């Protein structure tokens, strides 16, 4: 029998190692014929540490299981008796059952660093298919799938790939942006720690498609465990011949290096990331030229987000049509949404585009963790808009959100209850931009500081109407004049807070006569 206790960072953060040690001890004490597997997380974080056991009917789950609960849980598993922490068959838990897990199919299911487990669950099928195709055909398949960049911008991946593919032969690169710095997001981290071979497979396919022989995976330093797991996964794939000078015996070459970030949010911006991989300050580059033409070390480079590349193996295995059948409009496929903040059941929900915010926040998430009324959610990271309760029925797709002055971004949803001070959140948006701006362009570097100061004046009740108008004007300058999304999108949370929650900014001293 296999017993599973996740080794995902989030699970570890609430005691999964202690639980695992207790499971090991219980197995030994009872002399059970059982092995402990450290899987990734199923993404139901309110249930972590989640303990699973194999039974003839399927895997059964218990959670949250502290070290002190382990002995009784193991007893219930062995004797088949009831237990207060029992959750039944894992796959039947509504939170999981109602998802459409394509990219996250294996996360939490397999041993992340077992290549045999990976293959037994469908791993490498996409790469094997790709090795039998020429580069142009692979690019076309990705284009036909409708896959768009999952980092936030939503640019069609196939077009990027084709651009790099069509350039003359020579050194080309694949860069995977794993600088997942947005608050409210953790999907990339779950892939690094829960299914690292999937990402490597996606990067190798990209390399073969465009003729790149070298890839870089850039992971933020705030994810030490992810870095460790990915480095081990790269070594395993090299040893197995899926990375290196003869990928899968095909005669093609693809090498992969893992690079650590160093605590700069801006390095999630693609050109800053390139500078950082080159060993430089992470300042953004002006575009054009686009990285597809002149990217890493000035060479043609495909830059994709972790979730974009992780979607590719399935597309190559099952075909573009299979993937395109999910989603709505021009947003095809699925997005791993991340429910975060003040939410009762926070975690990862992979659904086809078109799911509404209400389904995510209420049906999956169970409303706020505090039990107080929902007031707002910030969707798409710190540069995304705040939405009001009245917008909860919006379907999640790139175009619908853009039409409503918001963005889907990387799929992070941070919920706030009615105690939130939107004035403070608007101030924070500017402060974050001030701290993390690379400093290259003036609208962002100076605008963030002036914006913060002006919001502070509003919050002190000084010339409120005049200063609100000033903030709005400043936001226009930042949006239109910044070099990248850091300065360009900081207005998004600020203006959405101002527009939807004006009462939080109305701090003018009341007249005595009132």
């Amino acid at each position, binding site marked *: 029998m296999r017993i599973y206790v996740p080794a995902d960072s989030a699970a570890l953060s609430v005691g999964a190692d202690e639980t695992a040690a207790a499971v090991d001890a219980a197995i030994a004490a009872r002399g059970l014929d059982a092995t402990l597997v450290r899987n990734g997380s199923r993404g139901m*974080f309110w249930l972590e540490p989640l303990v699973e056991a194999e039974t003839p009917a399927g895997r059964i789950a218990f959670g949250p299981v502290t070290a002190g609960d382990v002995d009784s849980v193991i007893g219930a598993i062995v004797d088949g008796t009831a237990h207060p922490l029992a959750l039944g068959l894992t796959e039947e838990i509504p939170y999981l059952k109602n998802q459409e897990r394509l990219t996250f199919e294996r996360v939490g299911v397999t041993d992340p660093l077992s290549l045999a487990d990976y293959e037994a669950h469908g791993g490498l099928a996409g790469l094997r298919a790709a090795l039998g195709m020429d580069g142009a055909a692979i690019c076309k398949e990705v284009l036909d799938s409708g896959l768009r960049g999952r980092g936030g911008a939503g640019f069609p991946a196939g077009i990027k790939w084709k651009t790099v593919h069509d350039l003359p032969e020579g050194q080309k690169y694949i860069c995977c942006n794993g600088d997942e710095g947005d608050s409210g997001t953790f999907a990339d981290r779950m892939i690094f720690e829960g299914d690292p071979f999937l990402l490597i497979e996606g990067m190798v396919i990209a390399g073969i498609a465009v003729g790149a022989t070298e890839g870089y995976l850039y992971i933020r330093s705030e994810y030490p465990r992810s870095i460790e797991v990915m480095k081990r996964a790269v070594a395993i794939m090299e040893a197995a011949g899926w990375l290196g000078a003869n990928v899968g015996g095909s005669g093609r070459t693809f090498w992969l290096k893992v690079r650590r970030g160093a605590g700069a949010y801006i390095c999630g911006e693609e050109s800053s990331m390139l500078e950082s991989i080159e060993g430089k300050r992470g300042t953004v580059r002006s575009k054009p030229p686009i990285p597809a033409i002149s990217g890493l070390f000035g060479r043609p480079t495909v830059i994709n987000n972790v979730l974009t590349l992780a979607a590719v193996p399935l597309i190559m295995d099952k075909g573009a049509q299979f993937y395109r059948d999910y989603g709505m409009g021009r947003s095809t496929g699925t997005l791993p949404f991340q429910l975060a903040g003040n939410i009762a059941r926070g975690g990862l929900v992979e659904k086809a585009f078109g799911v509404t915010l209400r389904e995510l926040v209420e049906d999956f998430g169970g409303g706020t963790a505090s039990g107080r009324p929902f007031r707002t959610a910030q969707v798409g990271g710190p540069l995304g808009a705040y939405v009001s309760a009245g917008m909860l029925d919006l379907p999640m797709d790139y175009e619908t959100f853009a039409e409503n002055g918001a963005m889907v971004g990387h799929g992070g949803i941070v919920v706030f209850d009615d105690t939130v001070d939107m004035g403070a959140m608007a101030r924070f948006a500017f402060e974050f931009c001030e701290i993390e701006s690379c400093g290259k362009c003036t609208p962002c570097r100076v605008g963030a500081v002036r914006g913060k100061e002006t919001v502070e004046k509003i919050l002190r009740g000084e010339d409120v109407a005049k200063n609100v108008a000033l903030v709005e004007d400043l936001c226009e300058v930042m949006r239109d004049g910044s070099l990248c999304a850091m300065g360009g999108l900081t207005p998004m949370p600020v203006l959405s807070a101002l527009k939807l929650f004006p009462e939080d900014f109305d701090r003018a001293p009341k007249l005595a006569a009132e």
Partner: protein
Amino acid sequence: MPEPASPQVEHAIAVCAAHGNAASELIEILHDIQDEAGCVAEETLPAIAKALNLARAEVHGVMSFYHDFRRAPAGRVRVQLCRAESCQSRGASALIEDFCARHDVALGQTSRDGMLTVEAVYCLGNCALSPAAMVNGRLVGRADVARLDALVAEAR
């Protein structure tokens, strides 16, 4: 006779060599030096610049750009408290204030006894279990003062 290099400088030179003295490896080099020595000392910068054939200003520029790199070692216990939006929605601001007051240390500073360094961080990727913290590299979910105090006491 030139003065013999200090052990710190020798270490920095060795790390550069291990990375093939490639300028593109500068961030990895600074990480490796800091992982070992606890900081990247000022006196190592000229040696790094020389080894990588960079201007000293370039090395300084990279050092100062990234939040991770420090000139002086942190305290024995390094506590990173997340103050990004998700953690704010779960009371991070109050937690930070409370924790700093209890330990008599300002955010971004090291305590007077040099033991405890408290830093702000913006997202640790544990947003479903906010507020998040990291104590000497160990991630803490649903952080509260009692748990942080216990971890600090353990790490001291």
